[in-house]
């Protein structure tokens, strides 16, 4: 059992984002409000502030991981924890600085001197690169290295296929550039210009006002062309950050040591505290929990949270050594708006009323695993705005009468049969589907649960238009987190009808609402940040109005905290993981 297949399917954005548990923000827990005997800090102390802030140097910081990452190469990974961790050895143009709450979700300059300068109405973005920043071998980093990094990570999908490819999506590409491994010319892609060694200009097809978020992805971290060997680059990464690889043993461990070429004068964010950082892969999750408790290990690398066993024990003992933040992710039930009878908004409303969110939250693992949700945007995603839930029911337990009334209006007074899909390797998702099935049955909707492997969920099943139509499958269990912390990053992939294809859809409500599409398209071209945030909140409301999704829970993750670690803070930019950048040891 526990097939937990961590496939990093490139289309299935959600697959990987979802598996790398995540989140940030202010979840509060009933347990342990006071000072604890053990660590001195209360439960959830690392959510609202940086806990044990310190500049003390030295020691070996140990991470342990239940699995292995898709790749250590910052240009070839889709796991949130790798985006988080790789900042230690890879400096992208912009990045996220450790900090509590919303302040961590704002990109700050790293390799760049400042945020991008937009010209041409947001179609051209110019970044100045800091002078005197060096690789671990002492050579200076130039704009060409950044350009090369973007080219290899976005245009050579046959070699590096694991990361996202937003640059390929938004950059101009009139000559159909084939990536640096096929096109060996020095010029590379024409839409990234490097007028001098410290200036880089990106030219886009359309106005895109959140470009700073895109360059904050680790894919803009410089890669020296002569040291690049494709997917094997993860074995000899040339560091630009505060740490460099001493050794990397695939599937076993990685050891990082201080990078002596890193100059704190060029870097306001990094601290370089421990002497050594060790990551051990493929450790039994229960062993990791025990090791952290014993102080032998400091952080769970893949940030999946504690096992059910440890969770029960910690909560039963009212342990203070835990942080239980929300993870910028929404667990929801998607309804296929293009498949009868769900193409009728009243049939969808019937489901909205029938679903027992309280039961669903308990099926997911209760309060430590999620708060009952009423909006599409989780509260810890910027531009979330609370509004009155149009389908509020008493105690969030569902309302059979209202659901039946809605069913009558859509001409199905006796209910109907449908299929509800869930992912095989996620027991909590299956339990959740079971709870929803029971609630729907009360109003006469018979949903047959079908399970499919997560790696093919979007390509072959819930995300394939043909499959859903052929199998009359109208309901899908879904969990979604955004690739960058903004309303657009979250909504665009699950609400934008313009991006719907035949398969590989993550918009599995098959929602194609002209108003929502226009709001999304217009807002991303709008330089006014506040106006953009408003538009996203508007889209959120409209998604509920059209009853395309039933929000179930705002995902939460339960981390076990080590009392030996300094500068602990949960990051909204990395979906509720501890920010790995400046962790040190007491």
């Amino acid at each position, binding site marked *: 059992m526990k097939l937990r297949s961590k496939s990093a399917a490139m289309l299935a954005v959600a697959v990987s984002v979802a598996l790398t548990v995540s989140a940030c923000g202010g979840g509060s827990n009933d347990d342990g409000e006071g000072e604890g005997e053990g660590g001195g800090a209360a439960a959830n102390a690392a959510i609202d502030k940086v806990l044990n802030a310190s500049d003390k140097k030295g020691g070996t910081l140990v991470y342990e991981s239940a699995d292995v990452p898709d790749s250590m190469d910052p240009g070839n990974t889709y796991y949130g924890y790798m985006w988080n961790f790789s900042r230690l050895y890879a400096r992208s143009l912009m990045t996220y600085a450790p900090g509590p709450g919303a302040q961590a979700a704002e990109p700050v300059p790293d390799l760049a001197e400042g945020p991008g300068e937009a010209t041409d109405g947001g179609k051209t973005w110019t970044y100045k690169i800091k002078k005197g920043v060096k690789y671990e071998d002492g050579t200076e980093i130039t704009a060409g290295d950044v350009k090369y990094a973007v080219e290899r990570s976005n245009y050579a999908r046959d070699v590096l296929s694991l990361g996202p490819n937003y640059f390929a999506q938004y950059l101009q590409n009139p000559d159909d550039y084939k990536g640096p491994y096929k096109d060996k010319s020095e010029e590379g892609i024409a839409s990234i210009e490097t007028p001098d060694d410290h200036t880089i200009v990106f030219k886009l097809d359309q106005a895109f006002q959140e470009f700073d978020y895109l360059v904050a992805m680790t894919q803009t971290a410089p890669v020296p062309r002569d040291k690049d060997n494709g997917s094997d680059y993860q074995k000899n990464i040339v560091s630009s950050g505060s740490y460099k690889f001493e050794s990397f043993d695939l599937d076993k461990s990685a050891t990082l040591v201080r990078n002596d070429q890193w100059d704190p004068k060029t870097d306001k964010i990094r601290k370089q505290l421990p002497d050594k950082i060790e990551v051990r892969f493929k450790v039994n999750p229960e062993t990791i929990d025990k090791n952290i408790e014993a102080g032998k290990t400091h952080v769970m690398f893949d940030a999946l949270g504690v096992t059910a066993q440890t969770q029960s024990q910690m909560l*039963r003992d009212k342990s203070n050594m835990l942080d239980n933040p929300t993870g910028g992710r929404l667990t929801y039930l998607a309804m296929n708006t293009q498949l009868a009878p769900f193409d009728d908004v009243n049939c969808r409303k019937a489901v909205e009323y029938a679903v027992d969110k309280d039961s669903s939250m308990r099926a997911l693992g209760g309060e430590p695993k999620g708060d009952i949700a009423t909006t599409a945007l989780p509260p810890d995603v910027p531009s979330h705005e609370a509004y009155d839930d149009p389908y509020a029911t008493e105690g969030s337990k569902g309302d059979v009468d209202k659901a039946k009334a809605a069913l009558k209006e859509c001409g199905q007074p006796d209910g109907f049969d449908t299929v509800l899909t869930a992912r095989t390797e996620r027991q909590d998702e299956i339990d959740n589907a079971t709870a929803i099935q*029971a609630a729907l049955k009360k109003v006469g909707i018979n949903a047959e649960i079908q399970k499919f492997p997560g790696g093919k969920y979007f390509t072959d099943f819930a995300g394939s238009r043909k499959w859903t139509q052929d199998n009359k499958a109208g309901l899908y269990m879904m969990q979604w987190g955004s690739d960058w912390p903004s309303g657009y990053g979250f909504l665009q992939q699950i609400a934008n009808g313009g991006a719907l294809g035949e398969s590989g859809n993550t918009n599995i409500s098959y929602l194609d609402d002209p108003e929502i599409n226009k709001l999304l398209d217009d807002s991303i071209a709008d330089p006014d940040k506040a106006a953009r945030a408003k538009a996203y909140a508007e889209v959120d409301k409209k998604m509920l109005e059209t009853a395309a999704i039933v929000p179930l829970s705002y995902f939460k993750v339960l981390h076990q905290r080590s009392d030996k670690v300094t500068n602990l803070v949960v990051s909204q930019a990395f979906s509720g993981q501890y920010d790995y950048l400046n962790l040190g040891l007491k």
Partner: protein
Amino acid sequence: MTAPIETTGATEATPEALVEGVDKSRIEGRSLGRIAWMRLKRDRVAMAGGVVVVLLVLIAALSRPIQSIFGLDPNKLNQDLVDPSLSTPYGSFGGMSWDHPLGVEPRLGRDIATRILEGSWVSLLVAFGATMVAVVIGTVLGVIAGYYGKWADTIISRTMDTFLAFPVLLFAISISAALQGGAFGLKGLQLHIGVLIFVIGFFSWPYIGRIVRGQTLSLREREFVEAARSLGARGPFILFRELLPNLVGPILVYSTLLIPTNILFEAALSFLGVGIQPPQASWGGMLSSAIDYYQVDPMFMVVPGVAIFLSVLAFNLLGDGLRDALDPKGRR
């Protein structure tokens, strides 16, 4: 096996008494059965197994009626009995109480006793069904291979080797995954049970087939068969009237021993998530969802574990006893 009795019965038959001889052999068969029964009765362990088996079959057969009489619903959620922050049932021993004698599940709070009851018919139906499929295919092909020999034997024996070498588990996993939704006019639970019976039965027939073939090989050279043949009896007659009655013993024994294997196989497939689909209760499925809680709520794992253990043990004990009882060389 059964050699002396059969030999006497067959050699005594005179040509005129052939019809009567059949009758006679039935009487012999009955007395063979009586001897076996007497032996079995003396074997206390086997009898205990037999009693449990009978009980199990009764429970499984009456599972649905019992549920409707007592108003039980295996899929009813009782989440008010589960601690929302721990996800485990309130109270000790997995939330045992008068209403829920074996406790309730973590998270969903479904009654475990009812789910065990509901799971019993699934387990036994699949095990019996699959065994039946295996016995029918195995016997037919085994007898043909053993009696006709030559190329028929070669083809069938090689087919059996192929089946035995087949990665059954992988095949089962892929076919179960591929057939979700609907196939052969079946849907949902019927489909899953049908697929399980087919997959398990289709891959366990070679075990029966080999035994039957071996028995047939030795029987066909016996005098009573030669006698029948010399009297003009043809293939089918010899197969059905002479050979099959003498094969009933071994077939009975090996199918009793195949049932527990199939119970385990069904549990394993449901455990791997490719057998019975939720929310339908099945023992293997319950065991699989119990893994996450084995330390904090051990009862949830113990109950379906004990159910599987007891039924497998009972069938094995009964099967062993049957083999001893039907073995004429047995000393008892």
